[in-house]
């Protein structure tokens, strides 16, 4: 009986907060989008919320499109594709993944990173946050590193136990190499090699060869 009362009390206390949060997002969308666009976008947002997906990234995509004066079709398409990406990211990262991880994972998937690579990352770091590895991976892809090389570099570094600051340093070094004119592929391999050489407990010879997952590109 006490448990039922506690649940009822919790639902009463929490419900207004959720409702106001959803209403707030919908109000923002209605204030910034034309009604014929706001309605389908809100449908996508509600559908995502019903699946337990984070809705803030979807609202952000729609508002970004409005600020950039994109066409209605482009905005709606972007929101739908992002919702699909969030669902795929949750499939790959698991139901316990946090909103920021799903957000970063959706971006990586939309850039062509396979779901398997995200799942491998999750296995490589089962309890820690994957936000920074996923952001680093996305940055590599954005800077022209082929998806396979980018995935391999971040996965190998994470498997070697590289912490977030080491991943960030690797990103900076690879970025600098690319700015100096090195090919993105070579830059990512050198960046990974340097990281593995400096990571404690990593056999030095691993730095000269990139470990790859069987059957992965």
């Amino acid at each position, binding site marked *: 009986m006490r448990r039922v009362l506690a649940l009822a009390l919790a639902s009463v206390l929490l419900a207004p907060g959720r409702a106001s949060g959803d209403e707030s997002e919908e109000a*923002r969308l209605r204030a*910034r989008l034309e009604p014929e666009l706001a309605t389908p976008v809100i449908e996508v947002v509600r559908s995502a919320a019903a699946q337990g997906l984070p809705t*803030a*990234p979807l609202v*952000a*995509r729609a*508002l*970004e*499109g*409005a*600020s*950039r004066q*994109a066409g209605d079709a*482009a905005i709606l398409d*972007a929101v739908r594709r*992002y919702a699909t990406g969030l669902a795929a990211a949750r499939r790959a990262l698991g139901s316990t993944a946090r*909103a*920021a991880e799903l*957000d*970063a994972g959706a*971006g*990586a998937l*939309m*850039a062509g*990173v396979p779901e398997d690579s995200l799942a491998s990352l999750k296995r490589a770091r089962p309890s820690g*946050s994957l*936000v*920074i590895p996923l*952001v*680093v*991976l*996305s*940055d590599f*892809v*954005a*800077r022209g590193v082929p998806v396979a090389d980018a995935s391999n570099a971040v996965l190998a570094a994470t498997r070697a136990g590289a*912490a*977030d*600051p080491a991943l*960030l340093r690797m*990103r900076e070094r690879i970025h600098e190499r690319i700015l100096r004119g090195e090919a993105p592929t070579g830059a990512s391999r050198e960046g990974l090699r340097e990281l593995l050489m400096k990571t404690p407990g990593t056999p030095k010879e691993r730095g000269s060869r990139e470990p790859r997952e069987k059957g992965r590109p």
Partner: protein
Amino acid sequence: MNGDERWDDDVRVEYQLPIEGEEQARDRAIRRLRRESATRGIGAWWVDPDALRMRPALAAACVFAVLLIGAWSGAAWMASRGARAPLPPIATLPSGSTAVTFVFRAPGATRVSLVGDFNGWDPDATPLARATTGEIWTAQVPLQHGLHAYAFVIDGRDWEPDPSAPLAPVATFGRRNSLLVVGEDRAL
């Protein structure tokens, strides 16, 4: 006059007698002092412990003035290099948020603003302040912990990513955004 008194008088007379060579020795000493004073250069003045005498209050005032000039010169040098001056801290931050300072270099720009998912991508919401040199623009924004996408808008037209930050993997509306992670190990 008894014997003691006579002895005293003899001693007194003896002391009052001129010492042989005393005048010459005094002249030699004076000439030497004059010669040394004439040959002492500016360098010797700097190492002479008695060359400078100053009241303690005046010495303290001089030290303070030197420090003030040093601080002013340092600030002017920093400004000339385009470094940003320290920004005032944000007095109160919402729970689970961190104050993040955005810095962007935009030569020739008349207006720069920050857009991102934290301000609804509104170009009017977060204008950046121009630093002393005119090329550096800054803004300090409290951000909730998590992943944020953002960009800079120059003169209300051009959207530019942050050159020092990770890029978003997909250019959803033509240009890529920058990514920022707040509250993991640090702001990225």
